Structure formats: structure tokens, C-alpha cells
């Protein structure tokens, strides 16, 4: 859960080293295992409409809170819905939350960070102060306050998480940009009169990409847990649509009578988050081979 604050910064990479990084990744069985875990959940989530399962909101009042059986492989929930179906449809919500909120964080974080690092001066000062201010408010408390402000829904939870995760990306993008700007090739690019846009596009962005990719992968993991946490507090996915966090929220009331309701979503969150963490670690090792 604390991976949100682990910030990885690496040396700028020459383009040639990138293919080497890919090869390195493909040789790392643990990272591949992580990728496989992630792929498994992604494919299951995408196939949800095609699988022979009951609808996630289909109720059967004769089968309320029934233990796993041949008819319902993972049991039924508090109003007689098939837990397996809700798990599969819930995967959509969790993965979407992870990816979209990180996309929001990247979409806002990269421009702000690059701008701060590229222009420096007061732009940097203002952006850095705001970043620090956001970083000083605990991640989850910030997300809770934002989600409460925006109103409970999956979309708003993603925005809240995205905004709360943004400062880390600003920081990395800024730091990397500052480093790239001191490189000789940027100096000479300037000297020959390339526009700011061209410099950023050709030199800055490619070089800040690796650490951002690593951080993004790890932050997806954090964001999935954050979505589950918000849904757990009733601030995320709204009924009757399923999400693993909201399933846990209801399951909490039936720990004794229906422990399976709490088991599956927890295990699923664990596995998908583990997948992203393994993949993120693998990516970092691949881009920064010093440690291995």
C-alpha cells in the first residue's frame, strides 16, 4: 500500500538501451508471472459479456447467501446474485479504476512536471509548492475527502484517486526533465534553434518515459486498492453494479454466515495487485540493471 510513495528515479536512457530493457524483461520469469496474472484478469474482464454466467444483477430470492455449489461456483450474495458473475464483472470496475485513475494522474502530472522542469523559475516554484502541499496530505484522506466532495460513484472515485496520485508523477516528471535538460544533446538542440515543443517531444518525453512507466505500473496497483478502499467506505462503485471493494463492504456484515463473500474479492484484489507489483518491479529492474 505504501508503494505510492516509493519513487523511482533512474538515469536518462539512451534509446538503444530500451530494446535491451525489453529483452531483460522477457528473461525475468517473476515479471512474466506478474504480467500473466494481469493478463488473466484483463481477459476475464473483457470476456465478461460472452461468458456463460448469469447477469451480475440477476437476483434469485430462493438462493440468498448460499455457499459455493455446482450451480453457483463461488456461492451467492446477500440478495441471491451469483458471486462468480459479480467477481468477473467486478474485475472490469477494479481494472478500469486502476488504469483510468493512473491515466488521469499521468495526463495531468506529466505536463505539469515537464513544464516545471523545463521552464523553471516561478512556474517551477508554484507547481512545486502545490505538489508538496498535495503530497503532505495523506493519500487516502485526500482521496476520501475528494470522493465525498464529488459524490459517491465509480467515475468520481477514479477522479479522486487520479488527483491524489498526481503529485508523484509531477515530481518524477519534473526531476527527470531537470536531469535531461543538463544533457549535452539538449544544449546543442537549443543551439541549433529547435522549438521548445520539438525539444520536449524529441528529447524530454522519451527520456522521462521509463521511470514514469515503472511508477505508473506500481500506482495502478495502489489505485486498485484505493478504489477498493473507497468502495469499502461506500464512496466508489454504486449498486447494483459490482466492484470488489463494494462486495467486501457488504460481505463485512456477513462474515460468519457467508465468509465466502469476503474471501473471493479479497483474493482477487490481492492477485491483481500482486501482478501489477511484480510487473512494475520487473520493469524497474529492466530499465535499471544496476541492481541485478
Amino acid at each position, binding site marked *: 500500500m505504501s508503494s505510492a510513495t516509493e519513487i523511482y528515479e533512474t538515469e536518462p536512457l539512451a534509446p538503444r538501451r530500451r530494446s535491451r530493457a525489453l529483452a531483460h524483461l522477457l528473461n525475468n520469469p517473476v515479471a512474466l508471472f506478474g504480467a500473466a496474472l494481469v493478463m488473466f484478469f484483463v481477459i476475464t474482464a473483457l470476456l465478461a459479456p460472452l461468458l456463460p454466467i448469469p447477469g451480475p444483477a440477476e437476483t434469485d430470492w430462493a438462493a440468498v447467501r448460499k455457499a459455493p455449489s455446482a450451480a453457483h461456483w463461488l456461492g451467492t450474495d446477500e440478495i441471491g446474485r451469483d458471486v462468480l458473475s459479480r467477481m468477473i464483472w467486478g474485475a472490469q470496475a477494479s481494472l478500469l479504476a486502476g488504469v483510468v485513475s493512473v491515466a488521469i494522474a499521468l495526463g495531468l502530472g506529466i505536463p505539469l512536471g515537464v513544464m516545471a522542469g523545463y521552464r523553471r523559475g516561478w512556474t517551477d516554484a508554484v507547481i512545486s509548492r502545490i505538489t508538496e502541499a498535495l503530497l503532505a496530505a495523506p493519500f487516502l484522506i485526500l482521496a476520501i*475527502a475528494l470522493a465525498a466532495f464529488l459524490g459517491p460513484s465509480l467515475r468520481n472515485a477514479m477522479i479522486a484517486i487520479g488527483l491524489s496520485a498526481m503529485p508523484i508523477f509531477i515530481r518524477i516528471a519534473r526531476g527527470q526533465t531537470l536531469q535531461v535538460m543538463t544533457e549535452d544533446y539538449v544544449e546543442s538542440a537549443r543551439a541549433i534553434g529547435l522549438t521548445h515543443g520539438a525539444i520536449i517531444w524529441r528529447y524530454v518525453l522519451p527520456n522521462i518515459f521509463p521511470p514514469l512507466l515503472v511508477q505508473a505500473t506500481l500506482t495502478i496497483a495502489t489505485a486498485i486498492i484505493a478504489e477498493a478502499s473507497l468502495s469499502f467506505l461506500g464512496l466508489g462503485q454504486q449498486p447494483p453494479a459490482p466492484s470488489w471493494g463494494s462486495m467486501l463492504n457488504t460481505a463485512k456484515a456477513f462474515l*460468519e454466515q457467508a465468509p465466502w463473500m*469476503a474471501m473471493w474479492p479479497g483474493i482477487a484484489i490481492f492477485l491483481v495487485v500482486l501482478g501489477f507489483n511484480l510487473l512494475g518491479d520487473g520493469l524497474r529492474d529492466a530499465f535499471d540493471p544496476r541492481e541485478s
Partner: protein
Amino acid sequence: MLSFIGRRILIAIPTILLISVFVFFLQKLLPGDPVLALAGEDRNPEILAFLREKYRLNDPLYVQYFTWIGNALQGDLGISLRTQQPVLTLIGQKLPVTIQLALMALVIAVVIGVPAGILSAYRKGTWIDWLANILALSGLSVPNFWLGIMLILLVSVKLGWLPASGYQPFLEDPLQSMRTMLMPAFVLGTGLAATLMRHTRSAMLGVLKSDYVRTARAKGLSETTVVVKHALRNALVPIVTVVTLLFGELLGGAVLTEQIFTIPGFGKLVVDAVFNRDYAVVQGIVLCTAVAFIAMNILADALYRVLNPRMRNS
């Protein structure tokens, strides 16, 4: 060193002011009327009007902000609408609880994380390293509110070993207090242990490769001496920094843990306050946490400089 700290504090002032603006206006933009939650089930309009007047909720926003921040600078964070107690008193009541939880979690994290990190670095590439890494990643990946629920189910409901909740103030009954906090501290500590293990491992790996360790080995010193005296001492620097930083983060991480184990601490206070639109409390807490967090950061940097003299020149 003093001038370094002084400069950092100066830079922190605008940051803290920014936070105060954020949290204030965010709060005010929240839908839901705090007075409605306060008026009682029958929402008598006369009472509503009186309360709005009393808590000066009819003033323009900027007036409300300056009143609040002005009082805050004088050490008055206002009064909780819900409980009618000064926010500072509430924080004073809750903070020790969360600090105890955080300290216990930190102890658990250090006891697990540091040795595991050292061992896996020292035995790099063996099954020990592999196992430690898997465990650490699992610790990072498990949602800690789920872990809390599962522990309650197993340890309290099924086995009856530890109470599921029921906070006991430390000063009244230290032993019982530790007992009731053990599960939540463990839940909170697992994620930290994982982070700590990973940092320790990479710090140790760096040091083990360094020249003076090689020299020490060449001098024929025993492996234990090499690891403990030379490697560990140097690896301690980043570890201490991480621990300092983690402590600030713990205050935030306690939110869900306290919610599940119903521990009357900081995190529970803030969640309840958000849901009840208890503005003054949310503002006060976020401000205090932010100040604490920034102070921790400054402390960590200062510590880093003290422990690692080479940093001073850069």
C-alpha cells in the same frame, strides 16, 4: 545545519498555507449541509437558522477562511460542530492513540522488515531471498482492510485469542492496551515491513558491493563482523530515513485500520468528520497531519545529512 533547517521551514510556510486553502475550500464545496446533520431528526428551521448564524456559516467564504486561519495561527482550531469540543482537545485525545498504533506497527515492521532485508541481501539469489521477496510483495499487495477483516474472523471470532476491538488507554492498563492493539498494528505493519524490507535489501546490496566491505573481507574479518559492523552500519542511513518518512505516512494509513478495529484514533476521527460534515475537525486534522508530515520530511533530510556527511557538499 541550522541554516539548512531554517531554509526548509521557510519554504514550508507557503506550502502549509496552500494546504489550508485547499482543505478549507474543498470542505466548503462538499455537498451536504453540516447544520442539517446537527439540527436533529426534525430539522426545525428556526434551529437551522440559529446554528448557521452561530457558526457564522452565512459569512462570505473568504471571511470564514481568514477567521479560521487567523484563529489557527493563535492555536485555536475551532470547535467540532458535532461534539461541541474544541478541535485541539479532540486531536489531543486521539493523537496518542494513533501514535501508539503507529509505533507498534513500526516496531513490528522493523522487527520483520530489517532482518528480512539484510538476510535476503546477504543471501541474494538463494531461496531465502526469493521467499523474502515474495512475502514482501504479498505484504504490499494485500488490501489491509481485507487483512483486518480476515484476522478478526480468524483470531477473534473463530479462535477467540484476541479481542476484536475495545481500545484500552495505554496509561490505564499497558498490557491490555498492547493486546487490543496487536492485530491492528500487525495489519498496519505488514505493508510497512514489506517496504522496509525492500529498502533495506537494496541498501545492503549497495553496501555489500562497496570497497570498504571488500577491504574488510580481505583483512580476514569474520563474516558476522563484516556484515554487522561495516555493512549494516552504512545501510542504516537510508533505513533511518525511510522509517522517519513512513511514520508520517502511518498517520494516513491508519484510517481504514482504525475504522475496522474501531480504534478511537485520528483516522476514525477524520472519516467520521468527513461523513458528518464536521468542517472544523477535518480542516484541523488535515492541517496538523500536513504540518507533521512536512516536519518529518525536514527531520528526515536533516538526519540524512547528519548520518551521511558526503551529502552536505552536494
